[in-house]
């Protein structure tokens, strides 16, 4: 039988490891959006002394390759130091799974991105950054280019839902071109805060809806 997926992918898809919600995580990251058809949320617990990932959990709204990659990447990351975990990439996941169809890279890469972002968020929040780049509009826009506009399935920067941000004394203000009453306003707001708040020098994130 020749499925596009390897036996290993199907095994992890069928019985994913490290799956579920985590109480009081040290860092969290979400990648993707229901509008794209795939979304991964990843939780980390990190030992403060050794900087080793003690526990890791993920949740997935997605296809088989998305779930399988979430399972394998969390298997690979657990017990690793943050530094080593950061070296894990899409290729390590694909190799450990015995290969993934090329067309599914898009779905599978989300779990890898989520791990990276979660580690990054932890570093921001625990003073572990080697180079402390001060947060400016550019940094914020870059982070926001990962927030998906649920209407279009593309990010909020590219779809011009966010065109202007303002950074002053650790307070980031993001102007969103959607009406406050919009059905997705709350989702967009939460995602923006989740993206920007972990930055090391950000004290507060304000989201202002100013669309018609």
């Amino acid at each position, binding site marked *: 039988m020749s499925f596009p997926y390897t036996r290993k992918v199907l095994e992890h*898809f069928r019985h994913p490891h490290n799956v579920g919600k985590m109480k009081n995580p040290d860092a969290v990251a979400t990648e993707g959006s*229901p*509008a*794209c058809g795939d979304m991964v949320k990843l939780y980390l617990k990190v030992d403060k002394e050794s900087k080793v990932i003690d526990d890791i959990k993920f*949740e*997935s709204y997605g*296809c088989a390759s998305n779930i399988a990659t979430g399972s394998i990447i969390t298997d690979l990351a657990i017990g690793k130091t943050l530094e080593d975990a950061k070296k894990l990439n899409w290729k390590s996941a694909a190799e450990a799974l015995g290969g993934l169809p090329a067309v599914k890279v898009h*779905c599978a890469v989300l779990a890898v991105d989520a791990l990276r972002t979660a580690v990054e968020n932890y570093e921001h929040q625990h003073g572990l950054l080697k180079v402390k780049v001060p947060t400016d509009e550019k940094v914020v826009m870059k982070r926001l280019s990962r927030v998906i506009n649920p209407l279009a399935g593309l990010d909020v920067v590219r779809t011009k839902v966010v065109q202007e941000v303002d950074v002053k004394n650790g307070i980031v203000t993001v102007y969103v071109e959607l009406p406050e009453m919009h059905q997705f306003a709350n989702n967009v707001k939460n995602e923006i805060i989740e993206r920007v708040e972990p930055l090391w020098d950000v004290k507060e994130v304000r989201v202002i809806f100013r669309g018609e």
Partner: protein
Amino acid sequence: MKQKRIYLDNAATTRTDPEVVKAMMPYFTETYAVASSQFSHTPGLEAREGLDEAREIVAGKLNSSPEEIVFTSGGTEANNLALKGTAQAFKGKKDHIICSGVEHNTVLHSCQWLEQEGFKLTILDVNEEGFIDLDQLRECITDHTFLVSIQHGNQEVGTVQPIAAVGEICKENGALFHVDAALSFTQMDLDVNVLNADFITLSAHKIHGPKGVGGLYVRTGTELNKIFHGGYSEFDLRSGTENVAGVVGFGKAVQIAQPDHVENIRSLQKHLMDRLTKDIQHVIVNGPKDIEKRLPGNVNVSFDLVEGESVVLHLDMKGISVITGSACFSRSLEPSYVMMAMGFSHERAHGSIRFTLSRFNTMEEIDYAVESCNEVVEALRMISPLKK
């Protein structure tokens, strides 16, 4: 032990009826001459007889005459012939064609190709249940419209279009009318004396016939150019050696089809739709809520908070074959264009599952499918970050 397979993907293709296979067999090994040799030798004449007999059966089902049935290599060719063949016939006279946004790709892509070739194309909108708006058709149709192409029943959500009314509008406006009935033929009434249709697309493998054969009903006297050139077969509308065995199988499949098969499929369909929406929480029906306005056997639902490909693969592991409109399921990574045309959110398309039944399915299979679906959806919702 080999797992029992529960095949619920009958809008893709159906099991070839063993009786059909039996009827076809002699045309491979014994009566294998070409039908165009009817004037040369006896085997050619026998092949011709097989072909003509099937033509009469198919024509009878439509209440048409045999000369109005052109056998093709399937529904795709029939649609291409109807659209491109009329466009050629009307070139320089009329230049406007109308179809809907939920037509099968063979119609949609043919129309878009004709647009590139200089014809004008209007694609009709559909509402949330997939129905076209007859008023929009009345507004769009003009003296320049040579053809309106509207499917009988939709391949994904099962919506049955008001084709009788479309036919009337076409008649009043002097436009030809093409109906893609690949999925409804033998399952729903199609009578060319009642219906003002000039072309009707038929397919054998959707109704327990063989793959690679279909047909186009062409009303006598209708302008149509051939698109395959060569010999003079099929009333000089379709060149190519006749697929005698395939056509015989097609005829047999039509002959076998009985009204009580449809009644049986309808009761399975109703049972499946009722149980899916009652046993599982947060389910939306895609397509008409009224089962009578759906193709027999079509059930399409979306499960909140889960992605379709995952549901499909889990069900496959349980021996159940279904499909989804999710982007992850398609090569293009685009969600179902039918659902996008119906104005669905991406999430709704991603969570959609299509079940299409045939007379070979049983009530026990439907119950097992619902129970499996419930388990799978529940398990996937447990790991979804979207759960409340």
